[in-house]
C-alpha cells in the first residue's frame, strides 16, 4: 500500500504564495480528506501531488521515491475530477479503457478489465453510451471506473460529488467509502463539505489559507479542535462562540460550545451561576431536531440543538445552560487551551 510524503512543499504563483511550506505524511491505505473553505489551497495541494502543477519548493515522495519532477503519468496516481472530465466523443467502455490503452495493454485484456470495473460500478448496461447520454451520477461512476481500472497506487478525488444533488451525493459517499474498503488503496479526497469529510475520512486535514490547521481523525477534530478556525469550520450548525464577561465567567477569553451541548430551560430570574439568560429569537424545526436561536442578554446569539420537536414562543425568556464538560476553551488568539 502506497504512502505519500510531502516535505516543505510550497506553491507560489508569481508573487503570491498559495501554499507556504508544509509537511504531510499519508500512510498506505489511508483515506485522507483535505477540507477547508473555498480558496484554502486544498485543490492546489492535490494537483501538486498529482503533478498537474509544479511545486515551487520541497519534495513529494510516493512510496519513498522522489516524484517532485515526475510528469503526472509516471506517478501512478489516478484522479477523479469535479467535472468528471470524461472524453465526450468516446463511449463509456472507451473512456474506462483509455488509461489501459495508453499503457499498451492488449485489447482483450482491456475488454476484460473494463467489464470487471463496469460490473463493480453497475455500468454494464451503459458501456456503449456516450457521456452526454448519462446522468450526473452515472458520469461520476464512469470517472471512478476510469480511475480504478488501472489499479493506481493512490486515488485522488477533487470535489467529486459537488455537481450531484443531495440524495445522489449521500449514495455516492457510501459507494466511495465501500470502494475504499474493498480496494484498500490510499485515497486523497478534497472537499469543502465537512459532512463528506466527517463521514468518509480516516484522517482529516483541515486547511486554511494554504496552511494545515489540524490533522486528525474526524472525532479528534470534532472533539478537540486545535483552534477557533477548526472549531468553527467543523460541525454543523457551527460552534457557538462566547467572548467577554460571559466567556470569562466560564474560564477562558474565548469559549466555544457546540449546539448539542446547550440546554434550554425556562427563565427563572435574571441568571444563575450555570446559565445564560436570553430570549428565544428563532426556532428551526427539522423534525428529528429543533435548533433554537437565543439572543443572550449580554449580546451574543447562540444556537441550541434540542432533540425532537420542541416548541417555544418567539421572544420567550429562556435560560441557556452549557454542559461544562464539553466547553472548548481558546486563547484570545484563537488557539485551543488544553487543561
Amino acid at each position, binding site marked *: 500500500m502506497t504512502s505519500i510524503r510531502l516535505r516543505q512543499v510550497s506553491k507560489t504563483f508569481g508573487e503570491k504564495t498559495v501554499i507556504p511550506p508544509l509537511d504531510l505524511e499519508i500512510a498506505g491505505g489511508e483515506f485522507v480528506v483535505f477540507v477547508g473553505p473555498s480558496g484554502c489551497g486544498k485543490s492546489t495541494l492535490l494537483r501538486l501531488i*498529482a503533478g*498537474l502543477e509544479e511545486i515551487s519548493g520541497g519534495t513529494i515522495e510516493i512510496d519513498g521515491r522522489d516524484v517532485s519532477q515526475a510528469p503526472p*503519468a509516471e506517478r501512478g496516481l489516478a484522479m477523479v475530477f469535479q467535472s468528471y472530465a470524461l472524453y*465526450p466523443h468516446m463511449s463509456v467502455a472507451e473512456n474506462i479503457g483509455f*488509461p489501459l490503452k495508453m499503457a499498451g495493454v492488449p485489447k482483450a485484456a482491456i475488454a476484460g478489465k473494463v467489464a470487471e470495473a463496469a460490473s463493480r460500478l453497475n455500468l454494464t448496461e451503459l458501456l456503449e453510451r456516450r457521456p452526454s447520454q448519462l446522468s450526473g451520477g452515472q458520469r461520476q461512476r464512469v470517472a471512478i471506473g*476510469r480511475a480504478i481500472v488501472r489499479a493506481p497506487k493512490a486515488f485522488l478525488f477533487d470535489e467529486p460529488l459537488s455537481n450531484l444533488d443531495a440524495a445522489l451525493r449521500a449514495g455516492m459517499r457510501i459507494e466511495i467509502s465501500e470502494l475504499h474498503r474493498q480496494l484498500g488503496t490510499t485515497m486523497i479526497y478534497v472537499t469543502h463539505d465537512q459532512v463528506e469529510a466527517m463521514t468518509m475520512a480516516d484522517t482529516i486535514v483541515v486547511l486554511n489559507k494554504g496552511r494545515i490547521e489540524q490533522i486528525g481523525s474526524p472525532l479528534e477534530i470534532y472533539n478537540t479542535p486545535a483552534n477557533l478556525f477548526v472549531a468553527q469550520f467543523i460541525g454543523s450548525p457551527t460552534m457557538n462562540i462566547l467572548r467577554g464577561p460571559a466567556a470569562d465567567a466560564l474560564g477562558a477569553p474565548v469559549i466555544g460550545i457546540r449546539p448539542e451541548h446547550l440546554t434550554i430551560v425556562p427563565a427563572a430570574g435574571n441568571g444563575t451561576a450555570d446559565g445564560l439568560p436570553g430570549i428565544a429569537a428563532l426556532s428551526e424545526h427539522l423534525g428529528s431536531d429543533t435548533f433554537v436561536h437565543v439572543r443572550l442578554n449580554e449580546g451574543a446569539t447562540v444556537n441550541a440543538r434540542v432533540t425532537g420537536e420542541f416548541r417555544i414562543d418567539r421572544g420567550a425568556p429562556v435560560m441557556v445552560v452549557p454542559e461544562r464538560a464539553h466547553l472548548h476553551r481558546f486563547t484570545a488568539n484563537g488557539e485551543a487551551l488544553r487543561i
Partner: protein
Amino acid sequence: MTTMDMATGSIASRPQAGIGRAARRVFWPSARVRAACAFLAPVAVLVAALIAAPLAGVVWNSLHHASLIDATVGGFAGLDNFRMVLDDEHFLPALTHTLVWTILSVAGEYACGLATALALAQPFRGRALVRGLIILPWVIPIAIAGVNWAWLLNPDYGVLNAWLVRMGVLAEPHDWLGRSETALLTVTLVNVWRSFPFYTISLLAALTSIPDDLYEAAALDGAGIVRRFFVITLPHLRPVSLTLIVIHVIWTAINFDFIWVMTQGGPLDATETLPILIYRYAMQEFDVGLACALATLSMAAMATLFLVQALVVRAREAR
C-alpha cells in the same frame, strides 16, 4: 365580469362551439399558424424576390437561347447550352483549375488557421494584441489585397522579388503571376493568406472551449502531448472544422473577384476557373444561355456538397 365568471362562461360555452371550431380547423389554420405566417411573410417575400427568382431565372435561361446584345436570339434550347458548355475546350481546364484552386486554398487555409489557433491558444505576453492583428488580412477588401499583392509580386518593381533575389533564393526576379506554371499557385497562396484568419478565429473559439480537465485527465492517463492533440483537441474541433471546410469550399469555388483582380484568368487561361468562364460567356461572348448553363451546373454541385454535409451532421447528431 370577474375572472371567475369569464372562466366559467368559457367552459360552459365550449360544447356549442365544438362542431364549428372543428369544421373551421379543416379549412382555416389556427391563430398560431396565422401569426407565424404573418411574421415569416416579409422574409419570404425578400427571399423569393432576391434569391429564388434570380435562381429560377438562371435555370430558365440555361434552358433557353439568350444574348445580351442580340434581341433576336431566343427560344427554347433544351439541353443545348449544357452540351455546348461540356464540349467547350475551356471547360475541362477551368474545372481542373477550380478544383486545384479550391482544394489547395481550403487545405492551406485550414493548416495555417489550425497552426495559428493552436499557437494563439497558448499563454504568452502580448497574446491579445496578436489575436487582434492576425485578423487584418481578412478585413482588407479583396480588390485592395489583390492589387497590392500584384504589386508586391511584380517582377520589375515588386518588393518580394527584390527580397528573394537579395537573399539569394532567386537568381533573377520571377514573374509569379505572369508565368502560367506559377500563376495559379501564386493566386492560391495569396488567397490562403487572405482567408486563413477566419479559420484562426473560429478554431480558436472552439479550442478555448475545451475544458482543461480533459487534458489533465489524459495526462494522468498517460497520453503524451501528441496523443492528447489527436484524442482531445481534434475531436473537439471536428464540428467547426466540417462547417468551416464546407462553407469555404463553396466560397472559394465560386470566388471570382480575387482571380479577376490579380490575373483576369490569365496568363493563357492558366488561372481560368469556372466563375471566370461564366463571366466570359456572359460579358465577353454575351451568351447568357451558356453562362447560365454553367452557373446551373456549378450551383448543382455546390448544393449537393451542402446537402451531403447536412446529412453527415444529422447522422452524427443522431448517433
